[in-house]
């Protein structure tokens, strides 16, 4: 039953709406949307299981990801120990380079997994939200042992919880060795407190910068108190579990590589945001996180960030208010907040506006490849990895913990735009490397046919006169593709 005019949307903007719920729409998604209407379509996306469809699962199973996670890190430690004892300097260096190479391979395979899903999963909203939360709880593959912890972080901590309660997501990233290694909390102990993670947990993960637009106001004292709460939250040590007195034994926690070590914890009483927290061990962490995510500032901060990514930047204030209200009423239920956003009149207005949200490099690359190669999904993700690198938004490559920005200003520099044009040309001309097996010669691939029925129905009517004129001046199918993917209309969601 077509439900075009309901749920704050018109059929005329269905295609664009699909380009917000996913990286880019396709014919099957459009048919489904037309049949079910927006609310039901969104409901199905939000109910999508974390499991991949069989073909995609098989492609992912073939990736060299086995060395990640707890076993991988334990092997890494053993290998590091072995290398430290090698006397011959050249041999030592060879062993180190080899270890380095295997870490890079792991981080690369994790990128491939992420990209395969972004391109091929029908559950586009789950994959977009995985990118979004991985960026919100950003870690940098190049620091310390993060490369070895990254595959597990995304798969176990983040991706299963992208539609769940925000508090669970915070606790999952807080217990993830990748985060504890990246933001140094694994080093933090009573008397030797490291504030790094405590600060970012408030500023970047939950409340927003103090005195900033989310309305948060916490002091340096609060940062220090939270850091004390977090002492002892860390990573399993190479030399086995700590020796604990009988009273502390019950307070010790250990799961996978995560460890809460009472010996390193500050059991004094704390005061966070005006609330007293009695020294009790890991229970303090739960209390503190519950306190943070209950704040109005947290609801505002998260809502604002979601709306800036999916709707418009700056985010429409009335929409952020409503989303934040939904966040607080629902106890931080992410699916409920997303429903409020995707079915909002503000989104509909943004979809109808002539000037729309500028795609960030990830959205640009993934949407272009999805559109150009819908009929024949690429099997080799390495070209995409390279394009993201050239455009300055490699996966897990943000060195600072704030994640990549969603703002147009960050991505529309002159050098970047010309690079996008070049990459659009490469995508449009059918690079065989997208189908190359590792180590073999690229397959021969013709120009993809972008001027499909879907093009004439959905894209062509949206093009302005300047883009139409440019398309008429092209000299080949490849150039026609390149110009379309480089058009200002395609650069916007």
């Amino acid at each position, binding site marked *: 039953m077509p439900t075009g005019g309901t749920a704050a949307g018109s059929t005329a903007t269905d295609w664009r709406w699909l380009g917000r719920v996913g990286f880019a729409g396709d014919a099957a998604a459009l048919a489904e949307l037309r049949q079910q209407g927006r609310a039901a379509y969104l409901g199905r996306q939000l109910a999508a299981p974390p499991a991949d469809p069989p073909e995609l699962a098989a492609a992912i199973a073939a990736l060299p990801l086995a060395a990640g996670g707890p076993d991988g890190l334990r092997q890494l430690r053993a290998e590091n120990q072995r290398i430290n004892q090698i006397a011959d300097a050249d041999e030592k260096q060879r062993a180190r380079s080899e270890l380095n190479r295997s870490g890079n391979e792991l981080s690369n395979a994790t990128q491939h997994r992420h990209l395969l899903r972004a391109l091929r999963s029908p559950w586009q909203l789950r994959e977009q939200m995985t990118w979004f939360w991985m960026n919100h709880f950003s870690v940098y593959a190049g620091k310390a042992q993060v490369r070895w912890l990254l595959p597990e972080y995304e798969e176990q901590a983040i991706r299963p919880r992208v539609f769940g309660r925000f508090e669970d997501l915070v606790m999952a990233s807080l217990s993830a060795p990748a985060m504890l290694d990246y933001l140094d909390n694994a080093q933090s102990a009573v008397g030797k407190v490291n504030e790094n993670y405590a600060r970012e947990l408030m500023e970047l993960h939950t409340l927003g910068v103090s005195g900033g637009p989310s309305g948060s106001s916490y002091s340096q004292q609060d940062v220090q108190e939270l850091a004390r709460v977090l002492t002892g939250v860390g990573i399993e040590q190479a030399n086995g579990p700590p020796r604990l007195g009988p009273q502390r034994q019950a307070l010790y926690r250990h799961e996978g590589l995560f460890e809460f070590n009472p010996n390193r914890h500050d059991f004094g009483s704390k005061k966070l945001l005006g609330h007293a927290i009695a020294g009790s061990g890991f229970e303090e962490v739960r209390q503190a996180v519950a306190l943070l995510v209950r704040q109005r500032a947290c609801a505002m901060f998260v809502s604002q960030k979601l709306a800036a990514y999916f709707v418009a930047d700056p985010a429409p204030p009335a929409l952020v208010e409503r989303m934040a209200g939904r966040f607080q009423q629902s106890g931080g239920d992410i699916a409920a907040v997303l429903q409020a956003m995707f079915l909002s009149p503000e989104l509909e207005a943004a979809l109808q506006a002539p000037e729309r949200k500028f795609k960030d490099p990830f959205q640009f690359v993934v949407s272009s490849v999805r559109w150009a190669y819908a009929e024949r999904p690429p099997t080799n993700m390495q070209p995409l990895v390279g394009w993201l690198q050239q455009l300055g938004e490699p996966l897990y490559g943000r060195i600072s913990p704030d994640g990549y920005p969603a703002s147009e200003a960050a991505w529309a520099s002159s*050098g970047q735009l010309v690079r996008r044009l070049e990459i659009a040309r490469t995508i449009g001309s059918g690079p065989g490397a997208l189908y190359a097996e590792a180590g073999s010669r690229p397959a021969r691939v013709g120009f993809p046919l972008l001027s499909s029925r879907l093009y004439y129905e959905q894209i062509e009517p949206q093009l302005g006169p*300047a883009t139409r004129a440019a398309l008429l001046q092209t000299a080949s199918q490849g150039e026609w593709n390149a110009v379309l993917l480089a058009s200002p209309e395609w650069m916007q969601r």
Partner: protein
Amino acid sequence: MDRRELLRRAGLAAAAMPLASRAWALPAGQADARFLLVFLRGGYDANSLLVPTGSDFYYASRPTIAIKRPVAEGGTPDPQAAIALPGDGASGWGLHPSVAERLLPFWRQGQLAFVPFAGTDDLSRSHFETQDSIEAGLPIPGDRSAPGSAAAALRGSGFLNRLASTLGAQAAPVAFTDVLPASMAGPAAIPNVSLKGSLRAPFDERQSAVYAGMYRGSRFSSVLAEGLELRQTVAQEVEAEAARQRDRSSAMAADPAMAARMQEMQAASRQAISARGFELEARRMAQLMRERYTLGFIDVGGWDTHVNQGGAQGQLANLLQNLGSGLATFAQELGPAWDRTVVVVVSEFGRTFRENGTRGTDHGHGSAYWVAGGGLRGGRLAGEQAVLRPGALNQDRDFPVLNEYRAVIGGLLRRQYGLDAVQLARIFPGSAPLDLGLL
């Protein structure tokens, strides 16, 4: 073309020919001033560039990678030894042999100085944190711990962006990088273009016109036009340079005596005729900064030398040579504009004073910054110094920071652009400029 001219054009005559002496001291607020920031990412080992040859402690701390003491005057030249630096405050310091040939002429002309014991107050020794904080130019630990502070409002902008905003039309900024660097991010719109590798024009004239036409009327119209034009200009410069190279090669091949002489010089300087790596980028950068841009940024990576760092030769020596040749080429290629140019070379931190167990060095603290420019009063070590003996190190590990980077760069910018206190406080809030007397 005479032989001398040929050599000069080949860019190999720096050692043989005295550089034009400084024509004039740089007046404050020079409208035509140029500034280039070179960021060595990875934490370069300053002790291998600027060698504390007077310190027994240095030689005891680095049994395998120390650079040998300079040869006494009249002694047999030793390519493994540091070159003694003449001049103010430089006694007991030498230059790495791989850079000496290209850089000593600049030093002797007063166009090059070093600021040892320079760096940030950041003690994290984390590459990314320190790089970010340097590029931001804000106090450390900074606005983050002081909600509502003046510096908090500047978060998200880099100090070169704030400098560009302050100078307005007086400066034409550009970043020679793939992505706009943190130091140039912010409210002022700054173009970027990478000068690495082959730079053929991405689009021919017809295609460029098609793209520019497609964007006309959109909000990206001017930035796209600028990007296309910049890439086109760079490509033309590169092509013209390649053509000059071809001319030179054929001229030399035609003259056997010349060819032999060139080979000899190359062997002595371990230098290829065709510039590679950073030298090539530097040449392209100079061409652009000579003609149209006055405020530039470039980064050079690869300085994280934990393992087999090398001494007079090796991985670090190659990097230093590449960097030194690049800066010399940059200066020569700039022509008269060099007199109004200041180049500052920074790195996020220095490395450990002692070598580690893998003949490398680990992350340290203080570093040595380079300052170069045609109008400089250099040829000396500037800033505060410490005597390098046991007990003098920061945390018994690395160089202490005696010359804070914001004060050092702020002092240079103040002189070069004639900035007042209010302007300077926008660029480096809460930092008092340090006048090292270099400008």
